[in-house]
């Protein structure tokens, strides 16, 4: 990205029709450590890579419970993420107070997106520098959304954001067709495999990743270190059994293809990494 004379203010358009400050904010998201989300018919799993810059430092919290049925994973400026999570919690509590029912995930995501949009149109504000993966369940089932600093939101079957997320996305693209029918344990394993891809050389342990799961009958829960380690250990056993899962489930491919066409706008596409048209326009 080059510095140019149209990127000082968020309220200045460039001649190419782009708001560079917003794009720079999305760049901040790409610099943060990875966050991954994937969904089945019954559950949504969020996983994060927790990088500590020194051994003395404790890991940053990137997974937040918003309500019993909604949780988020963030990538980017986690301070901005904390503020947004406080807003989301407050909205959920207020909705529950008035309507005595949980706030549907899609409605909450729109509220956050609108809040983010305000910061792209005020000269005295700056866009939020955090991308959120919002996982939740409501009457229509489990959902996974992404919130961008641009004020856009997308629904996904599976997605990854942050640095080295491309590796995770490649894994997800290979396997996403099987996700809908996965059990809770299988889904968690897929998430951990995806995290492994992002970690590349490093070994996957319960101290450099985090995992949370929410389901139709399961409240949002961030797994503690013990449970997480147990799942990571079980990965070793799983790799020995797994041939090529894609061959085993041909029936699901047709269903998945139908899903793919419906969600092709947000599904497993690779968003433009700084080249081509501004991502906010998709």
């Amino acid at each position, binding site marked *: 990205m080059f510095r140019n004379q149209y990127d000082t203010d968020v309220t200045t358009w460039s001649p190419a029709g782009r708001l560079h400050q917003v794009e720079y904010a999305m760049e901040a998201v790409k610099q943060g450590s990875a966050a991954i989300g994937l969904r089945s018919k019954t559950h949504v799993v969020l996983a994060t890579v927790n990088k500590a810059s020194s051994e003395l430092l404790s890991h940053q919290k990137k997974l937040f419970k918003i309500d019993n049925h909604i949780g988020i994973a963030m990538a980017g400026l986690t301070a901005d993420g904390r503020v947004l999570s406080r807003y989301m919690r407050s909205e959920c*509590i207020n909705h529950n*107070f008035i309507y005595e029912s949980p706030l549907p995930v899609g409605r909450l995501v729109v509220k956050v997106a609108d809040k983010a949009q305000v910061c792209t149109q005020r000269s005295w504000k700056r866009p939020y520098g955090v991308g959120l993966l919002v996982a939740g369940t409501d009457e229509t089932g489990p959902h996974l959304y992404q919130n961008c600093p641009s004020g856009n939101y997308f629904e996904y079957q599976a997605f990854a954001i942050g640095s080295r997320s491309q590796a995770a996305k490649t894994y997800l693209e290979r396997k996403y067709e099987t996700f809908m029918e996965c059990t809770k344990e299988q889904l968690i394993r897929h998430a951990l495999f995806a995290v492994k891809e992002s970690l590349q050389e490093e070994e996957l342990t319960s101290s450099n990743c985090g995992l949370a799961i929410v389901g139709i009958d399961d409240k949002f829960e961030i797994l503690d270190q013990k449970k997480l380690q147990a799942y990571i250990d079980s990965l070793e056993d799983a790799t020995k059994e797994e041939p090529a899962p894609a061959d085993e489930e041909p029936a699901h491919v047709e269903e998945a293809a139908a899903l793919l066409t419906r969600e092709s706008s947000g599904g497993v596409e690779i968003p433009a990494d700084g080249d081509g048209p501004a991502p906010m326009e998709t």
Partner: protein
Amino acid sequence: MHENIANIENSKRAKKKEHANQSRENRNMAMMMPPRLNPTDSASGPKQHQTWSPYDNNGGTCVAIAGADYCVIAADTRMSTGFSILTRDHSKIFVISETCALASSGFQADISALQKNLDARHQTYQHQHGKQMSCPAMAQLLSNTLYYKRFFPYYAFNVLGGLDDQGKGCVYSYDAVGSYERVGYAAQGSGMQLIMPVLDNQLKSASPLVLPKRETATPLTEAEAVDLVKDTFASAAERDIYTGDGVEIVTINARGIQKQYMELKKD
């Protein structure tokens, strides 16, 4: 031109004078007439019909007893208005957290609003602190919430019961605007005057002057305390028309929260 201005000034002054004279006349007139009576004056005749009240009393009684390692909170399930019964099956107990339950009698709408308010505050606390509120903390929060509406109070008479930070039973008793005190046992509501003397007899020493000072936790076992509560409610239901139908008993101890229900007289 100056003439015109002078004229205007003069006419203004004249009008002022006239106005002053008129007021003086009015005042004189008023002094001569007999004073007008307010229709609500006691001297003016029979009292007029009461206007609308924002409150209603839905009756009921709440009791709580603190033990060495448990707390018993109980409330009857009858909801009334005037001399009628609205329902025989309404719970007055709200379990706020793993270690804390609130029993309230009074105006049911205010009680529901108060419960929802505390629940929302508790959820926020859990998000911020990553753990549930302790019972003493909730006691202070309830007091502050009640005093916040000092000039349009929650018509709710509360008894908060649970386990304190050391795991001992604790009971807090409140008035409508948040004045509270930690006690060993408490009763609130329509049956309070019938039940309190019985609890005093069973749980307090013979005289408050007896030393050493008794602890705020009763030496009764959990089963004995529950039996005592059942007896007191059965007795209160005999004489208090607003207490009856059933009593819901919640016990909080280290094993968690247990609920039981006992039938009471339906008349």
